[in-house]
């Protein structure tokens, strides 16, 4: 009889019942890019097929992914710019659509994430027949879902770029667009990692999808899509908690890249706190300052803020709270960094978890 160590050595090119060793799993995490390259044809074809399936047989076909974001934007633009504008009197020219754009980008990013999770959760179970009948790498399936939704999101981003370049709704984004590839990569890793965990759990416990659908709804309201954390004084003490939400950083980073975010937040803040701003503005005007100085703070320097606050304090002591709140999460680099750690963490944990459970999928689905 062989000693156990000898047997293991002999087993090298055999397929056995032995689960993959830790080193093997880590090796597969590290060689993940290689796996993707090796199966690039499969990934490309599946993503293309999935996209085609969505629009095959429809009248507008591939125009649909463009119509969708356009429509969302139109709704937000209408509601927040035209319908509610009378409540926000102090918006300077050229920035009336701030809130609409702010929400549009949030929704676009969130939709790509949430839809991936919703579909991805069931991806292994739904493809049970494929997994039982064809020997192919099942870790490709969740990746496809993520990529399909990323592509759909990019249609929206493209629409936004074209829209801002050709109309005066909003200023077209500039050099910050160089961040887009990194943002995309991290968003893919984050979503993929989460789906790997959830779809594996769903194989063994079918309650997972139910829990996830509730969880996603709660998560959506915890992410600043329709509200501006900096502009609501009541929640300012919860800001550190909001910072724990990785999606907050992702959405923020996208907004910063696609909008000129510091000016936006000033404007948005003024629109939410319109009353205070209005009074501050009036006071400043009375003191001989033009409106725009407060309302179109493009990257206000610390000195400028201090100066303004002092000024406000002198004229109208009750309003000096406004400007100091501007700098809560205004660091793109930091947000991308924090989200990056989340993304890599989720990916590594999710991938290892998936690899360990993968061998049992065919028996359980």
């Amino acid at each position, binding site marked *: 009889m062989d000693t156990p160590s000898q047997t293991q050595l002999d087993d090298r090119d055999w397929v056995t019942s032995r689960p993959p060793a830790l080193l093997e799993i880590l090796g597969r995490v590290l060689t993940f890019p290689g796996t993707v390259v090796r199966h690039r044809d499969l990934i490309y074809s599946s993503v293309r097929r999935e996209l085609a399936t969505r629009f095959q047989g429809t009248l507008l076909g591939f125009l649909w992914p463009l119509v969708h974001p356009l429509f969302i934007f139109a709704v937000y633009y209408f509601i927040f710019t035209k319908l509610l504008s009378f409540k926000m009197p102090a918006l300077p020219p050229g920035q009336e659509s701030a809130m609409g754009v702010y929400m549009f980008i949030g929704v676009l990013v969130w939709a790509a994430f949430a839809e991936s999770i919703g579909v991805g959760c069931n991806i292994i179970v739904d493809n049970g027949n494929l997994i039982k009948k064809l020997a192919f790498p099942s870790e490709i399936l969740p990746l496809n879902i993520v990529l399909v939704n990323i592509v759909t999101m990019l249609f929206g981003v493209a629409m936004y770029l074209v829209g801002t370049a050709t109309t005066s709704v909003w200023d077209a984004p500039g050099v910050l667009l160089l961040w887009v590839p990194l943002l995309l990569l991290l968003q893919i890793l984050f979503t993929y990692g989460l789906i790997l965990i959830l779809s594996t759990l769903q194989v063994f416990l079918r309650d997972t999808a139910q829990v996830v659908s509730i969880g996603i709804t709660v998560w959506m309201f915890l992410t600043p899509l329709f509200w501006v954390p900096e502009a609501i004084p009541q929640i300012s003490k919860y800001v550190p908690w909001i910072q724990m939400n990785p999606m907050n950083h992702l959405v923020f980073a996208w907004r910063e890249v696609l909008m000129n975010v510091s000016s936006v937040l000033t404007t948005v803040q003024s629109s939410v706190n319109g009353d205070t701003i209005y009074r501050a503005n009036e006071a400043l005007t009375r003191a001989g300052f033009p409106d725009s100085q407060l309302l179109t703070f493009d990257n206000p320097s610390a000195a400028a803020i201090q100066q303004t606050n002092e000024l406000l304090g002198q004229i109208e002591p009750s309003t000096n709270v406004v400007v100091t709140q501007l700098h809560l999460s205004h660091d793109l680099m930091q947000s991308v960094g924090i989200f990056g750690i989340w993304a890599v963490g989720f990916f590594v944990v999710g991938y290892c978890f998936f690899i360990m459970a993968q061998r049992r999928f*065919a028996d359980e689905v």
Partner: protein
Amino acid sequence: MSAENSLEVEGLGKSYRMYKSPFRRVTEVLTRGAIRGHEEFWALQDVNFTMKPGTSLGLCGANGAGKSTLLKVLAGTTTPTTGRYRMNGRVASLLELGAGFHMDFTGRANIFMNGIMMGYSRKEMASKVDEIIDFAELGSYIDEPVRTYSSGMGLRLGFSVAVAVDPDIMIIDEVFAVGDMYFQKKCIDRIYDFKKRGKTILFCSHSLYDVRQLCDDAIWLKNGEVAAIGSSVHTTNEYTSFQRDHIGTEGASLADEYPDAPGAKDPTKQLPKITEARMYRMDTDEEAYEVHSGDSIELRIWWENPNPDTMPINLGMGLLRQDMTTCGGMGTHLDDYKLEGTSGCTVLKIPNLNLLAGQFLIPILLMDGEGVHKYQEFLLPENLVVRNETKEVGLFRIEHEWAAGDPTPAKSKAEAQA
């Protein structure tokens, strides 16, 4: 371990965990296995065999005997619970035709997707797509969505993709007898071609003819264990004789092979059966399975029929060449020959067997009084091998002679008559 084997399997076993409810699973996970929530079901136990390139192995056995499980493990879609295996060469498995087909896409698009799923690049598929389309012979349907296909057409497409790739080891799960007779023949030819080119074929089928014809060796699986292993003729005979002996005692395997037989559900009711059949040189006791064209042979069939009054029987015999060409078939009901009594031996005499060289499979059928329903198919212990010394081609030696005739051309003769 010798490197010349294309497939080696050692002590392979597979068990499934069955949880009665999700709560049991949660309990088991939470207590880290201290409370066992599952029951184990062994679908496969202790399977050992090796295969060399150019050989083929068939799997036979009743439903649920573990055939598909074994193929699934070897195809790599599921992992073994015990034991190990290894393969040498590129593997293609065909566990289900058209797995992964997308109904809304055209046949052509599905060819690409299916091939890529099986691990081939788009380039490889692009170079093969014409060949696949030719083989499938779907005409203009190839550019129609697959949902417009009949089920037979879908199978054609699936098979065409699967065999177009060029694996060293092919794993097939009773799928290739698909479509109409014409296409079946094409499939079988293709499989033969694989074999001739030194590929290894592992396949499972309920058709014992297929197992015998295509396979050198066979394994008979019974309740997940190897009941017999050896030459395909030997193994299939073991299997059929087991089934014969267990009609009425093993409900499951019985229902499998005799789905409509009266009494199949009632184990106490005795069914007619063929107990033995052998081929002899005519009027001698010399068993013969290798004969020459023109020899005279006879087939002796021993049968039992417990209820001749309520259940009259007929016997039939067929001659099938290895490529599935039917060369002849005869039955007692066709010749108005009555089988009487509760048991007996019936002899079928064939003087001057004028088949030309070839290997022939002799299925013997036990049929009902009308010769419509088939109670049992019995296989001779060996295939019939016919040799001939002449160089004639074809299936039969047709009685003929050559002679000199009238030298006047036939046309002018007709004119002269007019």
